């Protein structure tokens, strides 16, 4: 699909699935895009676990051969896919279309400003119980989108996972809902490597809902 065709489809409700790694996604992406990591081995399974079945998707992956493979996998899994963004972000920008960024935080920035953020941990609950950033809320990445979008917070959200794949997915869904969400790059791996404090909880802490 040409960039303007993608733009028109998005205006009609299609969702751009951006399958690039979180770093380039955070730097720049098609406004409203959801970051969903590519992997031939488990893409279908992860999509079935977490993506709404009633939406229409447009794939954005670079270079184009990845997008073609992703469309095949998603279509076979029963998802409705319109096509892919031909020529990627380079073509999108060459056609003068706007992009947006996802705010990034390092674990050091999170540690220094811990009282200013509401930390949301997007790993599975068993990982969360094992150890998490003190004061954080568990919101598994497989939760339905309306649950992610309905997280109540006075403070900006800081999204955490093991590294940044699941957290980037949840952060991007939140960004679509105009929520103030930042991605903590490096996640628990970097947090633990720095020796920063962790909290353990005996059972899953449920996130407050609107």
């Amino acid at each position: 699909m040409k960039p303007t065709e993608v733009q028109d489809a998005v205006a009609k409700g299609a969702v751009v699935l951006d399958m690039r790694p979180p770093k380039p996604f955070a730097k720049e992406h098609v406004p409203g895009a959801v970051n969903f990591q590519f992997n031939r081995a488990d893409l279908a399974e992860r999509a079935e676990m977490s993506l709404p079945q009633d939406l229409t998707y447009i794939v954005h992956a670079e270079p184009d051969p990845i997008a073609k493979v992703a469309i095949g996998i998603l279509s076979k899994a029963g998802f409705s896919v319109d096509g892919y963004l031909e020529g990627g972000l380079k073509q999108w920008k060459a056609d003068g279309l706007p992009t947006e960024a996802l705010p990034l935080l390092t674990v050091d920035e999170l540690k220094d400003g811990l009282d200013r953020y509401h930390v949301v941990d997007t790993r599975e609950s068993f990982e969360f119980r094992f150890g998490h950033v003190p004061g954080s809320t568990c919101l598994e990445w497989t939760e339905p989108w309306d649950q992610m979008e309905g997280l109540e917070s006075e403070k900006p959200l800081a999204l955490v996972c093991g590294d940044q794949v699941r957290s980037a997915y949840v952060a991007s869904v939140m960004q679509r809902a105009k929520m103030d969400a930042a991605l903590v790059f490096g996640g628990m791996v970097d947090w633990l490597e720095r020796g920063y404090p962790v909290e353990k909880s005996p059972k899953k802490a449920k996130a407050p809902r609107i």
Partner: protein
Amino acid sequence: MIMKQFRFEPLAQASYLIGCPRAKEAVIIDPIDDLGAETYVLEAADLGLTITGVFETHVHADYISCARELAEMNDVPHYLHESATDLVQYSFTPFKDGQVFEVGGVRIKTLHTPGHTPEHTSFLVTDTARTDEPWCVLTGDALFVGDVGRPDLLLGDQALDVMDEATRAETLYRSVKDRLFALPDHVEVYPCHYGGSTCGGVNMSGKAASTIAFEKRFNLAMRKDTPEAFAAFVKETAKPFPDDYARIKSYNLGLISKDAITEAAV
């Protein structure tokens, strides 16, 4: 660090992905057209890695390279040793001997190891997340497991051949002895070919990995004491020339189109 060896069995060819799981970046070394650029692109994507460069140890004569296509597809540089500038008819990003490339926490240092071809370069790899000591070396067609690259793949075009066969053999001997065998014993050896390939002699092992220490002790060609004895041994143990090598090399140099290779072969 992440390292993956891709094997194309019909030509006993090995290409490589080397990447950093933290930086989520990777480079591809010696990609082969028989596997196709998409193979490397999809493997990198499966690992969540962005391809940041394509390297070649040398301009190959026995298989069609897809380095140009892969670099273009990913909009990243195609790296070759600077001495290839006078040989190839397309633009690439030249590197010098001893140049260091950082792929996240992985360090790749170029070691010019001419002989098989004048521009031939090996890549010394260090995983700085573990140590500053090198861990492995991609030896291309200089050092194979159990053998060395053949120094006699000449095209009969003086402008391209640069060195004669005898000079190449001596140069190769010195490259392996003085440069590769000067590396620490523990360094692993990953070649561009293994047993069955016509780029080396009859003593190539089917095992596509070794160590500097093992090759120092048991590489038959390199156990010769003089460049002359080495050259004679390499000639005696050589295999027939690879199929279509002149046309393949011409394509890899950018002299003819890909169609021209197959048309001529039919």
